[in-house]
């Protein structure tokens, strides 16, 4: 089983649009959206949900006012300043350590697991299994939900006898990204030729290296700043990272998105669509199984 994860470091470089197009071109795979904070791939894959699973992780404290003697031990124990002077727990500051629960002499603290998100197992018109999730607004443990989505995706691929999983990753380099890339076969990095894009590319390359994941680069909107595109090419060459292709800036990508489609299906004759087809062929030839 080959898992290919598309990441970017910087947000908004075009990860999901590239994944949506690759989904039309690479066969024999399951699709997974690991951006559980802000899952967008479902907006262009026209999925039909066949199974929903609850995601629970982490407990939160709640003080039962009738039992509370206002002794203040919980406030002394809490390192997250989550308990107010009138002994109300702020659920957004509470990290669920349980210190208040274990040390309350009056047993006035409830410490329960709550529903934090939902995982959706879907089929799609193309026949690919597709798994995505929604973390409820402001919840924690996105890394764990990412792990759940990846496990479900792999299982669906195995059941259907598919050899690949194509993963749309989250932005950044923190917890959910680490959870998305560990153990994958390839981190496909979509970057853009801007000062910010290059800065963030370097950090995500370091992250992939840290976890010993091979990486490859796609430069999106490559014509908006030629000098920056040149620097990215030089950086890739120096660091021995394959540059799989350059995609020109194309307004039609947003239009395709508004129509709920990938650009390669919405406008297959555009240069950007041809460039994505070339990239998909390179991926298939390199990571054939």
């Amino acid at each position, binding site marked *: 089983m080959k898992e290919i994860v598309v990441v970017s470091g910087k947000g908004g470089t075009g990860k999901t649009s590239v994944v949506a197009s690759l989904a039309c071109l690479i066969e024999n795979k399951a699709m997974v959206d690991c951006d559980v904070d802000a899952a967008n791939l479902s907006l262009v894959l026209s999925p039909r949900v066949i199974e929903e699973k609850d995601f629970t992780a982490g407990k939160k404290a709640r003080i039962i006012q009738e039992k509370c003697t206002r002794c203040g031990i919980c406030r002394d124990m809490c390192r997250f300043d989550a308990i107010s002077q009138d002994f109300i727990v702020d659920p957004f500051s509470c990290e669920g350590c349980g210190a208040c629960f274990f040390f309350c002499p009056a047993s006035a603290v409830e410490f329960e697991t709550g529903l934090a998100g939902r995982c959706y197992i879907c089929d799609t018109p193309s026949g690919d299994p597709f798994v995505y999730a929604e973390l409820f607004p402001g919840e924690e443990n996105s890394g764990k939900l990412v792990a759940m989505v990846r496990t479900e995706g792999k299982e669906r691929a195995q059941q259907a006898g598919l050899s690949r999983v194509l993963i749309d990753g989250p932005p950044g380099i923190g917890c959910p990204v680490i959870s998305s890339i560990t153990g994958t076969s390839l981190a496909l990095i979509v970057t853009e030729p801007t000062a*910010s894009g290059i800065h963030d590319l370097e950090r995500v390359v370091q992250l992939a290296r840290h976890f010993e994941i091979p990486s490859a680069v796609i430069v999106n909107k490559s014509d908006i700043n030629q000098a920056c595109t040149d620097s990215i090419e030089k950086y890739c060459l120096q660091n021995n990272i394959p540059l799989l292709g350059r995609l020109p800036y194309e307004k039609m990508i947003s239009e395709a998105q508004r129509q709920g489609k990938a650009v390669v299906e919405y406008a297959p004759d555009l240069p950007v669509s041809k460039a994505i087809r070339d990239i998909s062929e390179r991926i298939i030839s390199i990571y054939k199984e």
Partner: protein
Amino acid sequence: MRVKNGEGIVIDLTGMNIAMASGKGGTGKTTVAVNFTWFLAYAGQRVQYLDCDVEEPNGHIFIKPSIRASSASKVMIPVVDQEKCTSCGECGAKCQFHAIVNLPGDTLIFPGLCHSCGLCSAVCPTGAITEGTRDVGIIEQGRGVREIEFTHGILNVGEAMAVPLIKKVKMERKDQFINIVDAPPGTSCPVVATLNGSDAVIMVTEPTPFGLHDLKIAIDVARLLNIPTGVVINRDQGGYPPLSDYLETSHIPVLAVIPEDAEIARHYSRGDIILESLPSYIDTYLSLATNLEKLLGTVSNSHVRRA
């Protein structure tokens, strides 16, 4: 109102903590944050820019600070004295983060999973657990263009714990300044940690299905935190009805609209401040400031700072 050289602009936002968020990445959050910061400095305000996108901080590319102070950001981790440890298993059983594994004769700590809650040392019956520290990133401070005060956090590569570093960056907010706090993308705990305690949040969105989908979740987060929220529509191409319908029915004010402009993209790609290169946009940021004051005014006449 036409502004020249920043004179004659009256802005009453001192001491305010204004967060910039978006849900979706790449909508122009940092662009609007740094240019709004620059505008406030141009208008004679004392302003600080704080970059809480510690995974991928980019504000420094535009504000160009000369760094005067740099310090490692540490979090507490437990240290086990194996001599005193009786392997009773109490710490591992109580740790909610699976950061401690008790083996016979050995208690293992997994620092990457630890939330620094201190519960293990509090429950240890033999006093075998003391508190050490480990680095999760660095905090840098300096002064950039137009005397803008600057603070950012840089998370160590491979580090999962962004929240403690974000909280440290936020501790550098200054009462006598306007604090512009740049949030990471997403809608989970790093965003909550950034937004919590802000006086207002400016959501920067783009008129696309992805932008709108993620904006709705981000606005839900701001609502849960009870923070007044306005929207900046970036890369506008003449309106996007699903977005305007949503904002209208949700009673979210539009603070400014910035058109799709290849010149902005070009200057952004180079790391330029847009308002320096394209001063015609200064009026846009003036109306952003005015509308933000209105948003804050409708919430509280006294501009009382939140905890």
